[in-house]
Structure formats: C-alpha cells, structure tokens
C-alpha cells in the first residue's frame, strides 16, 4: 500500500516537474515573441523614397508615356545592376525598366508598406480602381519575402492602385493553380508571379490573359509563350548567365572537375544556364555532378558532401544561390575538413556569402556572382501597369549579364541582413524594420 502511495507521489512529482519546465518554456517563448514585436511600433508615420536613391549622379533616360517617366537616377541603377548602362537593349524594355527604377524616388508610406508586407496584402488608402496581386509558388525564404516588399513599394507609388494582394502556395502546385484561379475570379487588374512550376502554370496564365488580366513574371520565371500566353517575362538571359559562368571556369579553373547545383528538378532557370554552361566549357573541364537541391540548404549540405566524397579535389562549382552555399555548402566543407577553396559562380549576391569570404580571406577562394534581381519584380509590375494603360509590352525584358568578382566588389554590404541581397532596392531603413 505504502509502495503504491510512494509510486503515486513520485509520478505526481515527475508530472509537476514536467509542467513547470513546460510553463517556463512558455514564458520564455512569450518573452521571445514579445521581444520580436518590440520594435514594431516605432515606425509609425515614417515615409521615404520607394527605393534606393543614393546621392549625386545623373539621371538616365528621357521621355515618358502611359503614366510613366522613362528616367531613373544613375545611383539607383548602379545599386541594382552594378552599372547604370546594364539596361535591356530593346528600347521599350529599356523604357519600362527605367520607369520602374525611376519610381524609387517617389515617396511612400513605410508604415503602410510594412503592414502590407506583414499582413500579406492591404488596402492602399488611395481608393484607386486597380487591384494588383503577387502570386507566389514557393514563398517563405528571404529572397521571396524581399521580392514581396519590392512589389509593395512599387505598387504604393501608383495612386491608381487601391488594393495589394499576396498569395503563397508553399511549393504546392495545386495551391498555386487555385491561388491563380482565385485571382482571376476576383477580377484583379494585374498579376505578377514567379512560376516555380514552369509550364504547369500555363493553363491559368492563358485563362488570365483571356480574361484581360496582364500577367508578368520576374527573375526569368519562364513559362512558354511570353507575349501570347501572358504579358512578359523579366530577367536576365539565363543562357548568357551559363556562358558567363563557363567563361569564368575556362579562365580560372582551366582544367579539372567542377559541379553544377540547381533548384527543383527540371526547373527552367537551372536547366537553362546549366545547358549553356556545359556547352561553353573547354574540354579539359569535366562536370562531375549535376544535382537538384530544391533550394534547400539542408539538401545542399548533403549533396555537396556527396560530391566532395567522390571528388575531394573539386576545382569549381556553379549554382544559383550564394546564400545556400554559405550555409549548407560551407558546412559540408567544414564537416569534411576540406578547405573552402575553388572557383564558385553564383547567380545571387546575398551578404552572408560575401561576409564569409571576407572573413576567410583565402586567395584560393574565388567567387563570381550576379544579382539576385529582387528589383526585377518592380519592372514586371510596371510592365503590367503600362499594359493596362494600353502600352505594347515586349514579350521579354532582358537585362545584360555582368558577373562581379567578390575580391573586387564584396557582397558583404554594411548594414545588410546576412540573408539579404545587396542589389535589392528596398531602402536600408525599411529593411531593418523588416528584419530587426
């Protein structure tokens, strides 16, 4: 009898201990969450330019039409494109780009922008007749979240836009199609999207186009038939990106083993540059692996580790995402106890990779990169808005490629969150409010 009582008491004591531990964790969680929310109220009523304006410099471009001015400050263009003259060669495409980047000088309400970003949409308060939507297939990483803010900032420069909508399908194709159909059913005025599922989105693109809704994609989110099945695709020529990567490998690696990493299997972005890089490599360079990573740093670590196991003398690696290589990729090298050296070509320019390279200070670590291109979403929205005003939009808006060398122009920009791209046009003060 006593033993049973003792056992009961012991169980109670154990349960009380577990409950106390859980309660302490709850308190800590609430404290952590409230700490997060602490800085939110300080931004009330703050306004500023919708994009990076910089100081000095000249104004590039001239003329205007369809409610737009085809001019932009040169510091803005340099910030987003590395050089002010790296604009599309097609005149209309160039005008649309200048109009979008030029809108960075217009004043917007940062408090509203932040609320809109946090709440995944908002009413702009202008009473404008247009509703614009950003429909995402993937959604929640920093790159896409920053693109969302760029979209909101550009939209807030249009008094005619009364409502902004954001939808994310979290990598679920059925959800992405449902989101798109929902936008068509709501008769939104314009849609901007990153079609993570490629041509699987074609039927809904065509449906929206038939319904008179302009649809544009950014960051070379390529779906078949721009100009007919949808309005336009904005981005760099990914085949030229692959050729630029090959140019670096041919001159820096010269001969040896390299590897390709891509995103989701078969996605058009990875497939395009990989095909063109492979074709342009000199015969002494061998591509020993070509692996999809689903743009998941955990997967990157496993795959890089596998490649290193097979090819410990890996001389180079090409991939879209500099951030994931600074996370999963670096961790794989660390775990394998192999020096983080070689020639790396990336499409994006997240600060974390630049800061890691600056910290390592290894001359044998050679990094070349392009731009994440978050600001391209502004060009896509402006193209849609001009289409609504009756402008003829070219089917592709293509930016020239110029790779940057980390040792000469570091990605590690002062004040930028580690996971953010330095070529984004989001004003730094607002970026700090997004990621306090």
């Amino acid at each position, binding site marked *: 009898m006593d033993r049973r009582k003792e056992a009961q008491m012991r169980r109670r004591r154990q349960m009380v201990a577990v409950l106390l531990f859980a309660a302490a964790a709850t308190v800590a969680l609430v404290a952590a969450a409230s700490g997060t929310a602490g800085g939110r109220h300080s931004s009330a009523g703050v306004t500023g330019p919708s994009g990076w304006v910089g100081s000095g410099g000249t104004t590039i471009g001239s003329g205007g039409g369809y409610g737009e001015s085809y001019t932009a400050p040169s510091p803005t263009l340099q910030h987003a494109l590395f050089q002010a003259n790296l604009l599309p060669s097609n005149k209309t495409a160039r005008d649309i780009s200048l109009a979008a980047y030029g809108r960075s000088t217009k004043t917007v309400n940062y408090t509203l922008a932040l609320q809109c970003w946090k709440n995944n949409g908002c009413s702009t308060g202008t009473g404008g007749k247009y509703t614009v939507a950003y429909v995402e297939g993937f959604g929640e990483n920093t790159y896409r979240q920053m693109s969302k803010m760029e979209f909101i900032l550009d939209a807030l420069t249009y008094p005619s836009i009364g409502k902004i909508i954001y939808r994310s399908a979290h990598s679920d194709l059925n959800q992405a199609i449902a989101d798109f159909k929902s936008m068509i059913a709501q008769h939104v005025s314009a849609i901007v999207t990153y079609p993570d599922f490629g041509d699987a989105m074609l039927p809904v693109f065509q449906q929206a186009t038939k319904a008179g809704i302009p649809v544009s994609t950014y960051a070379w989110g390529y779906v078949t038939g721009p100009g007919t099945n949808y309005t336009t695709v904005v981005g760099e020529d990914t085949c030229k990106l692959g050729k630029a990567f090959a140019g670096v490998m041919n001159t820096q690696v010269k001969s040896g083993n390299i590897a390709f990493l891509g995103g989701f299997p078969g996605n058009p972005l990875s497939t395009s540059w990989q095909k063109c890089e492979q074709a342009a490599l000199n015969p002494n360079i061998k591509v020993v692996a070509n692996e999809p990573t689903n743009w998941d740093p955990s997967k990157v670590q496993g795959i890089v580790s*596998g490649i290193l196991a097979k090819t410990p003398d890996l001389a180079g690696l090409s991939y879209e995402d500099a951030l994931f290589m600074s996370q999963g990729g670096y961790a794989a090298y660390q775990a394998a106890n192999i020096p983080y050296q070689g020639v790396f070509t990336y499409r994006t320019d997240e600060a974390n990779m630049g800061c890691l390279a600056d910290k390592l200070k290894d001359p044998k670590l050679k990094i070349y990169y392009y731009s994440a291109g978050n600001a391209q979403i502004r060009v896509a929205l402006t193209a849609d808005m001009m289409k609504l005003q009756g402008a003829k939009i070219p089917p592709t808006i293509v930016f020239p490629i110029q790779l940057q060398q980390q040792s000469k122009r570091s990605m590690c920009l002062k004040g930028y969150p580690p996971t953010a791209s330095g070529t984004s046009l989001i004003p730094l003060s607002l970026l700090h409010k997004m990621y306090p």
Partner: protein
Amino acid sequence: MLALLVIAAIFAPDALGHTSWSYVLPYATVLAIASLGQMLVVLQGGIDLSTPGVISAAGNLIAGIGAGANHNLPAAILVALGVGVLVGLVNGILVGVMRLNPLIVTLAVGQIVLAWSSKYSRDVVTNRPDVPAGLAHWATAKPLGISSVFWMGLAITIVVALVLRYTVTGRRFLAVGANPRGAWIAGLNVRTNVVLAYTAAGTLYAVGGVLLAGVRISIDPAFGSGYLLAPIAAVVIAGASLSGGLASATSTWVAALALTLLTQMLVIMGLSTAMQYIVFGIAIIAGMVVSGDRIAAALAWTTRLVTPPAHEAGTG
C-alpha cells in the same frame, strides 16, 4: 544494413570514405534521435507528425535566442528543449487524455508550431541566422575521429534502450504499448504512459533540433522540414508495427543510419533525380520486407518444414 554496406562497397565505394561519413554520421544521428521519439509513440500505438515543427522551432530558437553569442547558448538550449516538452505534453494530453486521433492532432499541433517557427524565423533569425560558435564547434569536433554529435546520439540511444529494458517505468511502458487493455486490467495507468510517450518524443525531437542546428551552422526558414516522414520510415523499417507493440531502439538507430547512407550513396552514384526516388522507394519497401519479425517468422516457418512438430511426427 549489411547488404547496403556491401552494395555501397561495390557500386559507390566513396560512400564509405571519410568525407562521406563526416556527413552521414551526424545527419544519421539526428534522424535516429527523431526516430527514437517516434518509436516511443509508435510503441503506444500512436503516430506523431509534429516532428518537423519541433525540430524547426528548436533550431530557430537556438539561432534566435543564442544571437551568435556563446553565453546565450544554455538559455537557448533550455528554451528549445522546453518547447519540445511543451509540444509533446500538449500532444500527449490531446491524444492520451482526450482520446483524439493522433494522426490529425499531431499534424495540427505540428502545423501550429511550424507556423510559429516560420514567423519567428522571418522576424528574428533572418538577421542573425548563425548558431553560437560554441555549438557549431562542438558539433564539428571529432573525438576519437568520429563526430561528437554521433557520440551524443549513441549515449541517448543507450539511455533510452536501458530505460525501456531495465527499469520498472520502461517495462510498464512496453507492457502498456504491447497490450493496453491487459495493462489496464493489471492496474497500469495507460493514459499516463501515452502522455509520457508523446512528451518524451517531443523532448527527443528538440534534442535532434539542437544537434542539427550545430551541424548546420546556420538556420533557414526550411530548417527541419525534411523530418515528417523519414523518422516514421526508420521506425517501420526497424521492424516496429504501427499498431503498437514492441520495437527496438538499436534497430531504429541502424535503420536511420541505413536511410541516411542510402541517400548519400545515391548522390555519389550520380543517379538522376527520378532514379534516386525510385531506388530509395524500392529500398524502403525491401527494408520493410526483410525487417525484424518477418525474418524471424520466415526462419520459424523454415524450421517447422525441416523438423515437423512432435505431435505431427507421431501420427500416421
């Protein structure tokens, strides 16, 4: 596992090299610890789909509260483990006391935790994704040439196995899992054991999350998302029945190691993505077919064929 090692030695010898093990062992350990948690729940006839949520929350809290400073690490680890206990306790109460369907309840709780973790990651961790250097250094250290994460995992596995096998609480826990009605008739508290299973599982997921954070060095919003089905696969391959009953911590560990090695082997073999999925799927089915009790049953059947039972031998 032996068959896999032989196949790897023939078709992908690099998978058995030092560089490969430096990845396989820490990741297999994290999967093994998550699988041990899942095993405790499966032993009680339940299932737990909150694993990715807890691992994600634990990792993000390590980076968020740790804030890159070693002196914050103890608090970060305590809060991360506390979240695991809390989530497990909630799951346990909802399933064990309120008798709700474990599949739906743990999925729902897991989604809530994952959503919170995703928001916390976006709000706090984006700006400081690196885990404190102390944890990262510990995770990359290799006492006796083997990852310290592996040694930690091994110690946890031994403790779980010993507790289940040699303590009164462990034996009662196994008895309740094997036959809840019988255990209830014998005076054992079935509900308490179910709550205990989910709470212990939540704690183990959090431990896995902390170790994974050390291995990964920095945290991203997708952290932990790959741990929904892999722990269940490991438990089932290890011979456990999803309807409850007996399971082995050692077999679960070996199954987790086999799954991780297989993944790495397929990458090293350079198979196309489609082919990797096909081979992985076939390997899981093959693992289930040849696992534990089936081999024992097949051996028993063969033995019966060779040596007929005495009462049959004496007839006719």
